């Protein structure tokens, strides 16, 4: 396989800079990925040539903006193999995507029903369901995880029962990197007639997803984690599901008719897209998707898996180094602690040496609670990271640990 990481790095201008006099090593990709020239240029082109509001006005620029935006909807549809473009909703992000579904289900769920999530979720896939349950009297259940950070499915049949209205879980854990057994959980949910939502925040940049193959009801993506602009997410929903739930935001663009007494909603996808959309973000996201596909998501995943294996082996030689989350199936995330040091201190001293990692709870407080830790430091790899960068990271970490002990 010919994976030219240097050619890829050339496409990411931000990577070519010094931090504290040392070359930047960006290992905070699970928080947000950097943007290739193709994305930056698409946004520049949009504002230089095509900017106008969409879906209204007959003038040329409005038509161009609308066409560009709708072309991306079609690209996303093809990328995840949805049945039709109307099933692709643009949102403000995954948090917004999940809230849209959780709010919408409020009209359907009964107090005797339950929602099942997992012990491995980001706060954005916990809190909206807690709010739904508080509003409706439904109960919230958790699929537990084991010490390796893998979901424990031994009780799945009891947890997901005939009263389960929704099963919502992430494909890949942001905090630990665990790749979850999506199909097994979806199959159980389907067997009892529960709706399903898979949070694809971390799978978007690393894995090929086919929503029809999974037969999942809802799926979410985050643009900024996929090398696209911030402030944009995707909510995929099966037509019949999206038609069954009411929108949670009212305004322009999402209506069919408005009188002072009553309004009727537009059809999907517009029913869920109140207000002027994030047009520039959508166009940038389209460029990001094309860029990912030009490199090839399987090639990216293979490169990242090799980096993960290399880094796991290299870092494990550091005395007292401990990885939190040692699942058998893992994406390119290393959440770690080093004995005798605090993750915040590690983060500061790594930054002084040009290495960007995340420190803290990663918006996953319940996971940290289960491991009885206050937080971790986390290195996460993307398509442009290299073995040399891992060597630099290791050397910087060793220096930090020596200073701190």
């Amino acid at each position, binding site marked *: 396989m010919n994976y030219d990481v240097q050619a890829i790095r050339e496409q990411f201008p931000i990577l070519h800079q010094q931090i504290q006099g040392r070359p930047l090593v960006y290992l905070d990709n699970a928080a947000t990925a950097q943007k290739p020239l193709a994305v930056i240029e698409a946004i520049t082109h949009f504002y230089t040539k095509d900017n106008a509001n969409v879906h209204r006005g007959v003038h040329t620029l409005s038509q161009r903006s609308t066409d560009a935006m709708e072309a991306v909807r079609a690209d996303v549809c093809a990328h995840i193999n949805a049945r039709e473009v109307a099933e692709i909703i643009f949102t403000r992000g995954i948090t917004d995507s999940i809230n849209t579904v959780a709010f919408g289900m409020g009209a359907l769920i009964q107090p005797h029903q339950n929602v099942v999530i997992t012990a491995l979720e980001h706060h954005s896939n916990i809190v909206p369901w807690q709010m739904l349950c508080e509003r409706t009297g439904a109960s919230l259940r958790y699929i537990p995880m084991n010490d390796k950070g893998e979901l424990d499915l031994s009780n799945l049949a009891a947890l997901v029962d005939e009263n389960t209205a929704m099963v919502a879980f992430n494909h890949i854990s942001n905090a630990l990197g665990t790749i979850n057994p999506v199909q097994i959980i979806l199959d159980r949910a389907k067997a009892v007639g529960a709706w399903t939502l898979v949070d694809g925040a971390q799978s978007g940049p690393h894995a090929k997803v086919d929503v029809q193959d999974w037969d999942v009801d809802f799926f979410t993506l985050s643009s900024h984690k996929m090398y696209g602009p911030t402030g944009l997410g995707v909510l995929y929903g099966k037509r019949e599901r999206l038609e069954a739930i009411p929108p949670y935001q009212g305004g322009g663009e999402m209506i069919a008719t408005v009188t002072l007494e009553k309004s009727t909603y537009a059809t999907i996808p517009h029913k869920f897209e109140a207000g002027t959309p994030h047009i520039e973000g959508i166009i940038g996201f389209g460029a990001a998707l094309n860029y990912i596909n030009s490199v090839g998501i399987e090639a990216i995943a293979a490169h990242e898996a090799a980096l993960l294996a290399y880094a796991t082996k290299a870092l494990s030689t550091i005395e007292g180094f401990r990885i939190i989350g040692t699942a058998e199936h893992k994406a390119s995330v290393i959440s770690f602690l080093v004995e005798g040091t605090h993750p915040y201190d590690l983060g500061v001293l790594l930054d002084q040496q040009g290495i960007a990692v995340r420190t803290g709870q990663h918006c996953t407080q319940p996971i940290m609670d289960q491991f009885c830790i206050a937080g971790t430091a986390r290195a996460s790899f993307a398509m442009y990271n290299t073995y040399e960068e891992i060597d630099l990271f290791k050397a910087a970490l060793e220096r930090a640990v020596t200073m*701190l002990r």
Partner: protein
Amino acid sequence: MPTIAEKQAILIEEFTFFDEWMDKYAHIIEMGKELPVLDDAHKNDDLLVQGCQSKVWLKAEKEGAHVRFHADADAIIAKGIVAMLIDVFDDQPAEEVAAADLGFLEEIGLKDHLSPTRANGLMSMIKQMKFYALAFSSVN
């Protein structure tokens, strides 16, 4: 006993030896390591300084007209920073602590160097120390 101003001058002098932030941090870390640990019994939530990313416990006692500070933190850089503040403020007249201007934080470059969240943490530590000092001086 050096005054608050003299203590600050000594710290500024110490930091002039270091050009690189890694070395400044090494010095801050050493100060953190030298700060006597706070007994676990004192590490309760009442003593936590609000607004710090890591856990910082701060205890103050009145000793005549002076104020004595003790602190600990779960992260060593935060502990080193609070150790610097204690170095300047400990065993000083409460009224002077409450009124003091901590110019040394700018002189050694720490104020500009910290990210906004961590700068807020630093400000919270100072605020808490001054709050104690003010409470003690009004008792006099």
